[in-house]
């Protein structure tokens, strides 16, 4: 028996389609059912339809808006810092990296460590008795900030996230920097262009699409942050580090409000979808 070519296509695409239907199609149906129902862990299988009640609850919950605002600030600040630092490292270290490839390996180590594990490691490193950082602060300055207190915890997790993911931006910029045609630089240096001017007028514009991509990816990753914050401080002092993901997690598992958690997840999906569509539209237009 010989299959026609469109039959062949369907056969070859079928594994991934079945996989998606089973593991995502079914959950999507569940999301919709439970998003519009009231349910709890005691009666998991018997949701009762309550219409838009859950969405009403979520949108009137100050905790939801606080979490959204937290995630937004966190994502914007970390994406900016990671791109700025990553760009600097990629350009400044480029002359060294050309001859010493192993330097890249050293710089990407933070990314290979699980973010959850990073959070735990910082718990040790920042601990007031066992941690080396407060120890050295005391030794050198006679004073140490309490890194995980309500006042400083936001800055601390910003630094934690930035130090772990700057390497990602660095990698993208390194690749973009190496891809700039050498002739452009040579032509510019024949004209007597100074290094600083070369960067602003010639190299940076060449890397602008990469800057956009890196910033966008880091923004999305920052917005959905969960692991490192959760393992370092949980929801933080007074819930001050409740990101969107932590909010949904706590609503679901801690408080058992299934319908509300699902409604929040659906809202988050809609926002993420819009942001993605917008981001891709802008990227396509800029190319």
């Amino acid at each position, binding site marked *: 028996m010989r*299959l026609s*070519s469109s039959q062949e*296509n369907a056969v*070859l*695409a079928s*594994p*991934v389609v079945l*996989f*998606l239907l089973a*593991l*995502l199609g*079914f*959950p*999507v149906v569940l999301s919709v059912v*439970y998003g519009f129902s009231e349910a709890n862990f005691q009666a998991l*299988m018997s949701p009762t339809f309550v219409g838009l009640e859950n969405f009403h609850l979520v949108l009137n919950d100050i905790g939801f808006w606080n979490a959204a605002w937290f995630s937004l600030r966190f994502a914007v600040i970390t994406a900016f810092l990671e791109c700025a630092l990553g760009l600097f490292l990629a350009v400044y*270290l480029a*002359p*060294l990296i050309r001859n010493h*490839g192993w*330097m*890249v*390996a050293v*710089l990407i*180590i*933070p990314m*290979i*460590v*699980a*973010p*959850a*594990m*990073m959070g*735990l*490691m910082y*718990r*040790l*490193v920042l601990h007031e008795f*066992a941690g*080396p950082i407060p120890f050295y602060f005391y030794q050198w300055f006679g004073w140490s900030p309490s890194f995980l207190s309500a006042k400083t915890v936001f800055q601390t997790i910003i630094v934690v996230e930035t*130090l*772990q993911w700057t*390497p*990602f931006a660095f*990698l993208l910029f390194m690749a973009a920097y190496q891809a700039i045609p050498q002739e452009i630089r040579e032509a510019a240096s024949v004209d007597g262009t100074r290094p600083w001017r070369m960067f602003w007028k010639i190299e940076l514009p060449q890397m602008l699409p*990469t800057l956009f991509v*890196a910033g966008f*990816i880091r923004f999305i990753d920052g917005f*959905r942050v*969960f*692991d490192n914050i959760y393992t370092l401080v949980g929801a933080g002092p007074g819930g001050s580090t409740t990101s969107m*993901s932590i909010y949904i*997690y706590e609503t*679901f*598992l801690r408080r058992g409000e299934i319908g509300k*958690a699902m409604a929040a*997840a659906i809202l*988050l*999906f809609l926002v*993420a979808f819009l942001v993605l569509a917008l981001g891709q539209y802008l990227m396509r237009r800029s190319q």
Partner: protein
Amino acid sequence: MKLHLALRWIVFAFVALIMNFPVIATFITALKSPSEISRNPSLVVDSPTLENFVTVLTVSDRLNVYHYLWNSFSAATIGAILPMLVAFPMAWVMVRRGYGRALLFPLIVNLRALPLIIFAVPLYLMFSVAYLLDTRIGLGLVLAIVNLPLTLMLLVNAVAEIPIELEEAAHMDGARLPRLIGRVVLPLCRPAFITTFVFGFITAWNEFLFGLILTTQRAVPMTVGASFFFATSGGGVQWGVAAAVMVVAALPPLILGLVMYRRISGSMVSGAVKG
């Protein structure tokens, strides 16, 4: 010029130290005895000892690290291989026939950018019906979803790089599709398979959120198991043991990642840029 170069080295050393500081400090703490930890939090160990590692690697009532390691290993293996199996034929029809390029490909690739928590809640409900909660297979299936987008992208890149003449030649020789894919395309994609597997394995090993939500005991992965050591019930955290657990937990992906850092960084870049 010399001074400039020295300055660059200093910046590199400083940045490398700061970014890797938690990893370095954890490793050093793991080498300290409990009494030394309470007296000396600095980075210099007075009397290095392996007793924390012995504690961690010895099976006891309280702790069986091999259980966590095995859970992570099996779930991460499923989570890395399954997406390759389902995505490879798709990658070929997409590149060579343009099938699914309009809808399926963007759909899958964009999954990567969605917050994982969106799937966590409905998957929990589905798994509780399907008896997949707290199983290694269940966790592996979920990790396969996480890995699918990047796997598909890397395999699409790999197929696209095969010279079409090779496939045409095989076609001329009368090779039918299964033979063409099995004998020509598959062997040429082998390097990409290795990269994709390693990348997927590391990602799956490092995953935390689904392990936290979907497992409670039997299938708890290493990342979640490590966090148990920080639960402060009963007399505070044993920092030395906790540090040794973290070293053990972080080592498998670190070794894989450092051995293959060129490919890992390369696929990160292509995954980002093509998306």
